[in-house]
């Protein structure tokens, strides 16, 4: 039952992703990271669309790649190794399509999933967080009021990946804030809906190629047929979506950690002090050994969580465990890489400080690591 060999198909996807990352991401990573201001580079979307990489988790029947979660995590690791920031628009889209694939009805899937597939693909996003409802999702205030065959949405969503860029968004709103999680509902909202505007765009520490910002809903009309799942099931929908997306998100952090490790390894072999490469000092080589060990452990935890998802088993515990370990491992590895490079590592001439800034976000989004620990401890 336990085997760690990738199938030929998985190896092909890995190779494809690695080539894409080398050609279509790496050459732009530095430039997009250093840009000032917050203008989004739409060429990212065109490149991903040409490779159908926005539709990784969309079933083949709707035009996507239709790969399982384990394969998706293998692809994500490769993309993360090139640039987590450039991967981010795709990651935000996958969140929305994971949710839609999970709970959408046939009509909803037919109307929306093909939009993120193929050469003309658009981005999508998942909108849960609000200024006053972060970790406490049940505190969502965005109000959905039913009026005949429509819902009217009012409120503000914050820290939304792909805000202002999405062809559609999955938006979580409440029909009664007093009911907390019992009043939560999920809606598919057209990106062009009248009354939907982009608010503040965040100027972030890392992930600078992506766009994260506010979505403001001012009497946005959503047709009844765009409500996801049964009434008042929004909380379950959100939890299930995040349980399924966390391992894949962690895989991106593994990619960035791997890139930092590889940079540090090459540097340590070439950099000479006292007449010999610094890797010959145990102080350095043991740091590299720890980095390799932790990357490997994180990958196995991620693969196990993905395997559970693919077996249709409950992955809640395994997903949270993998998210905590993987994202904190990535920060430690990137920090050690900076240390090994010394003064050079702290400069922008080398990419390790960028890896560090990028992976730092992973401990915060898709449920902070503190929330993951609450989930883990509640299941012990």
């Amino acid at each position, binding site marked *: 039952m336990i085997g760690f060999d990738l199938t030929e198909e998985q190896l092909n996807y890995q190779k494809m992703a690695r080539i894409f990352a080398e050609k279509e991401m790496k050459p732009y990573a530095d430039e997009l990271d250093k840009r000032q201001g917050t203008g989004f580079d739409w060429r990212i979307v065109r490149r991903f669309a040409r490779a159908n990489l926005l539709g990784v988790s969309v079933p083949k029947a709707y035009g996507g790649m239709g790969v399982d979660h384990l394969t998706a995590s293998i692809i994500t690791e490769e993309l993360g190794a090139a640039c987590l920031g450039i991967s981010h628009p795709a990651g935000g889209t996958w969140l929305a399509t994971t949710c839609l694939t*999970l*709970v959408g009805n046939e009509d909803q899937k037919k109307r929306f999933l093909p939009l993120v597939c193929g050469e003309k693909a658009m981005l999508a996003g998942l909108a849960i967080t609000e200024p006053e409802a972060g970790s*406490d999702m*049940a505190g969502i205030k965005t109000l959905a009021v039913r009026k005949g065959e429509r819902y009217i949405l009012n409120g503000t969503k914050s820290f939304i990946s792909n805000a202002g860029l999405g062809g559609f968004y999955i938006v979580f709103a409440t029909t009664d804030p*007093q*009911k*907390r*999680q*019992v009043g939560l509902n999920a809606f598919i909202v057209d990106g062009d809906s009248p009354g939907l505007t982009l608010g503040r765009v965040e100027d972030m520490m890392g992930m600078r190629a992506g766009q994260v910002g506010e979505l403001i809903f001012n009497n946005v009309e959503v047709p009844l047929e765009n409500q996801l*799942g*049964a009434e*008042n*099931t929004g*909380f*379950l*929908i959100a*939890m*299930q979506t995040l349980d399924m997306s966390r391992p894949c998100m962690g895989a991106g952090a593994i990619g960035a950690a791997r890139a930092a490790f590889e940079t540090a390894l090459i540097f340590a072999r070439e950099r000479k002090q006292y007449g010999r490469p610094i890797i010959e000092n145990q102080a350095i080589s043991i740091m590299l050994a720890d980095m390799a060990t932790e990357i490997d452990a994180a990958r196995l935890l991620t693969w196990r969580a993905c395997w559970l*998802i693919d077996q*249709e*088993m*409950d*992955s*809640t515990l395994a997903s949270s465990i993998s998210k905590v370990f993987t994202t904190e491992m990535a920060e430690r590895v990137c920090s050690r890489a900076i240390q090994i490079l010394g003064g050079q590592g702290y400069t922008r001439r080398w990419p390790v400080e960028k890896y560090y800034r990028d992976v730092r976000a992973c401990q915060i989004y898709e449920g902070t690591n503190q929330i993951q620990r*609450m*989930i883990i401890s*509640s*299941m012990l």
Partner: protein
Amino acid sequence: MIYKTIGKKIQKAREEAGLSQEEMASRLGYTQAALSNYELGKRRLYLANIEQIARELNKPLSYFLVDSPLRGKEEQKEPPDEITSEIINLLSELPTEEKKNILEYIKWRRDRLP
């Protein structure tokens, strides 16, 4: 955790309906092993599964969902009607002796209110 709580409710509703796992599984078109895994919270329950089970057992969907997705301290922030309904739900799972203890405790607390 969500699945475990929902699974327990499925088991309870099934037993109240007087159905064995085998009977219920065949009505739903699942294998008995799959239903057992759902009840134990080991298998991921899709919303569609829960809806199907709710229909089959003649229960509203909310019966399975309403007080299940509680995590951490959120419970304490519930409006009173939610707390009350949860207390009633949990009480029904306890033996009479335990209920008596809890009744005594509630009275003890009430008598000490400012």
